[in-house]
């Protein structure tokens, strides 16, 4: 039985009286709603956090008014404003594509939640090809970005979309290659299996194994994942000083909000993947801390990585297009190939 169904039965035993199809649909719908809610609330929180972090890094205060304590309700007010704004579609835009793009970009982001293990017993779907599924689904978002950029019928949007496509295609390779080293170590593609392979204390996490090679693999994955979610210093697709807002120049109101939501959800997703692959997922750093439930650890580690993403964003300037390609093809890709060779030899020799 799927672990999610088992989890639901453990929670509410009465569900087993329902017909099986109704039970499955009900659990799936509730899980989707919960994850959607989590993604939205996390995005609201992360946007607020980003504004606070950026402000304090520049010795400012950031939002301070709405909600009282350090402007905590600022993003709620912003979201309400975006919801109530007029939905503008350019006259020359390709309407169906233009309308579909935000939905697809967010759906692709949300789909990755399906294989993220939150604790020993809670994972929406423990596929045996979990990592492969993540890699394929997370590159789906680029189609939506291209759709949005193309359908806007605007040169800036098209440039942004084209940059995004070339960037994501280039950075998919170091991402996959650095995750292959993880697969080499754990011998499974299942996300839950990867976490189980790191059981023990801090030093048995993948990042500290085969030192320093897995650490380098982690850094490569982190850099490439920044490019994958279009964050600074790789935010060429929406480079505001050159391309207005890149692929979402023509979007406003709710559709723009969905692009924004997808960006922050993606930030969490790539952080959660690197947490699962390198930082022990929901495992506590020390055995005696295991009384604290798994979701806390997964969320805490992922949040820390999200913070590092913000930290980098407010530290580094944007790369040039040629520098972007250089970083991917001439630095990250050869390095991750070398890492695969070294780690597999080491693995075979110590087997």
């Amino acid at each position, binding site marked *: 039985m799927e672990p999610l169904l088992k989890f639901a039965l453990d929670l509410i035993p009465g569900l087993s009286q329902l017909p099986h199809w109704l039970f499955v649909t009900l659990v799936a719908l509730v899980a989707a709603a919960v994850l959607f809610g989590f993604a939205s609330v996390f995005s609201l929180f992360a946007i607020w956090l980003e504004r606070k972090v950026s402000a*304090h890094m520049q*010795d400012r205060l950031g939002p301070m008014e709405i909600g009282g304590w350090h402007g905590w309700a600022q993003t709620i007010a912003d979201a309400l404003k975006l919801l109530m704004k007029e939905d503008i579609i350019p006259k020359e835009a390709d309407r169906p594509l233009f309308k579909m793009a935000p939905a697809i970009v967010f759906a692709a982001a949300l789909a990755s939640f399906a294989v993220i293990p939150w604790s020993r017993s809670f994972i929406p779907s423990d596929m045996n090809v979990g990592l492969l599924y993540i890699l394929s689904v997370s590159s789906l978002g680029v189609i939506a970005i291209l759709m949005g950029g193309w359908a806007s019928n605007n040169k800036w949007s098209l440039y942004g979309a084209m940059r995004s496509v070339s960037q994501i295609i280039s950075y998919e390779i170091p991402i996959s290659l650095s995750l292959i080293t993880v697969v080499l170590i754990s011998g499974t593609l299942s996300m839950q299996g990867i976490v189980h392979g790191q059981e023990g204390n801090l030093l048995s996490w993948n990042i500290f194994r085969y030192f320093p090679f897995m650490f380098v693999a982690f850094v490569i994955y982190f850099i490439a994942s920044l490019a994958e979610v279009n964050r600074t210093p790789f935010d060429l697709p929406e480079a505001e000083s050159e391309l207005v807002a890149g692929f979402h120049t023509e979007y406003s109101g709710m559709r723009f909000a969905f692009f924004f939501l997808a960006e922050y959800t993606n930030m969490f997703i790539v952080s959660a993947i690197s947490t699962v692959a390198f930082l022990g997922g929901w495992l506590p750093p020390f055995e005696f801390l295991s009384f604290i439930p798994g979701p806390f650890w997964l969320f805490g580690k992922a949040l820390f990585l999200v913070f590092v993403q913000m930290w980098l964003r*407010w530290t580094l300037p944007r790369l040039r297009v040629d520098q972007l390609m250089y970083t991917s093809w001439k630095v990250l890709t050869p390095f991750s190939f070398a890492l695969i060779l070294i780690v597999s030899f080491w693995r075979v020799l110590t087997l």
Partner: protein
Amino acid sequence: MREYFKNIYEAVATILVGMWVTLRHLFVPAVTVQYPHEREELPPRSRMQLYVNIDDCIGCRQCERACPVDCIEIDLIKAGKDEDLGLTSNGKKKPFHVIRFDIDMAKCCFCNLCTFPCPTECIYMTPNFEYATEDRTNLNYHFANYTPEQIEELVKREEERKAALAKAKEAKKPDQNA
């Protein structure tokens, strides 16, 4: 090949240096002044709004003449012979009723030139800068403290005085011609 590895090393090292700088600034107290809630004390000589202490004004019109944009407008009525308007705080006699002393802050260019010639130092700049209004006419500040009735009476008296003076002159004229 050496260049390649040196580049990578430099990239990583400089990024770490930059991250250290931003991390340090994360814990530096912000320099923001939360304006409506807290305000900074402006220096006492800041030129924000003109103020006239009308009790000290002797009606010499020097500020009106000094103003390069004509934002000060003064109307005077001479005091009567046996009328005593009192003294200013630095002991000067007040020879005029200042029936109008208007300063249009919408026109004012904050040059401070009007304050220097004032013999009693009754016109000066204050640090108050929060006098924005929705109507430009509200920026015309009236400093004279005469009621309209008083002004009417004074104007009438002045006209009568002038008429009497003209009459006296007229009466004198034939004498001179003769």
